[in-house]
């Protein structure tokens, strides 16, 4: 079948502002949006620019605004979208070119929450054991692939780009509730800032956008409760 693919194009060296361009692309129902983008780039316009890497929903490189909702281009199939498909870059981020956005601010916020295990205790001669229940506590948030689909779907982030955002809070959650980690208080202090967890308005856009089906809003509220309990 033929798909009407609309792409929000922007070349900072040529264009004053982003504009829509349409392409008629032959596709099957099981084709993914990434296949369509490659069809355009390979056969129609080689200047079309987008990020992709693994193409299997693991690396998180190709998160885009597809038919009005953030998704991974490599995961969403034509049969899920219909014959009219629109693709735009992630919202709330500076566009570098076409579908590529500047992720520097996103990763700066990610780094700000100390997304690494902190434990300065001398290493034991034996393995450091963790119960199944302790591991289960943060299991959901270990699945994050840092695609930015959640953060860029959040109205609070659109209105206040200084908001640390759902993805960074999810990463903090992964370590705050890890029984082996000793820096939970430091992370909670960071997230108690006015640009921390308080900007969440429970719109659940992050949950529906997450390609790994993480309960992002639940994680944010668990961190919020931990901050309140710490100060209570």
């Amino acid at each position, binding site marked *: 079948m033929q798909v009407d693919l609309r792409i929000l194009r922007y070349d900072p060296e040529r264009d004053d502002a982003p504009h829509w361009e349409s392409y008629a692309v032959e596709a099957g129902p099981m084709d993914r949006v990434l296949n369509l983008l490659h069809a355009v780039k390979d056969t129609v316009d080689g200047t079309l620019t987008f990020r992709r890497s693994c193409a299997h929903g693991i690396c998180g490189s190709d998160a885009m*605004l597809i*038919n*009005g909702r953030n998704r991974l281009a490599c995961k969403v199939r034509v049969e899920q979208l219909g014959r009219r498909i629109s693709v735009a870059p992630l919202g709330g981020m500076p566009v570098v070119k076409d579908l590529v956005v500047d992720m520097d601010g996103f990763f700066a916020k990610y780094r700000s929450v100390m997304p690494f295990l902190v434990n300065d205790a001398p290493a034991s001669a034996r393995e450091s054991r963790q119960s199944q229940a302790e591991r289960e506590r943060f299991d959901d948030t270990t699945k994050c692939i840092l695609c930015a689909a959640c953060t860029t779907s959040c*109205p609070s982030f659109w209105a206040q780009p200084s908001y640390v955002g759902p993805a960074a809070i999810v990463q903090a959650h992964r370590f705050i509730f890890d029984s082996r980690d000793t820096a939970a208080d430091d992370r909670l202090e960071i997230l108690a800032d006015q640009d921390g967890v308080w900007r969440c308005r*429970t*719109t659940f*856009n992050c949950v*529906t956008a997450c390609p790994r089906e993480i309960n992002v809003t639940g994680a944010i*509220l668990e961190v919020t*409760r931990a901050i309140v309990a710490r100060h209570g």
Partner: protein
Amino acid sequence: MLLRYRGGPGMLAWAFHRIAGVALWAFILLHVLDIWLAAANPGLYDEVLAVYASLPGRMGEALLGAALLYHALNGLRIIALDFWPRLTRYHLQLWYASWVVFFLVGIPGAYLIVAPALGLPGLKG
């Protein structure tokens, strides 16, 4: 982005909450103004009250009651999510439940407010 993004019911719940909140804030401003009239210009105050008692005025009051009811019920939903984050798995069911209560309380409430303007028994005031 706000109009371009197709959020789900969660975003709709938030948008309605904001709209209802702004409507309530606007009414409080109006209310401060009409109460001020009671002292500043009693004759004009009586005329304003007559507008409130008319059919369009009472329909406006019913809309105000709807905004108040939605804001309160969705506010309770948000408070429940804040206290028990595990409920986030059921946020849609909570939203639908708040709509059920909204209509159960809102329809008779709207009738009681609007009815006197149609000559039917209801809330005088």
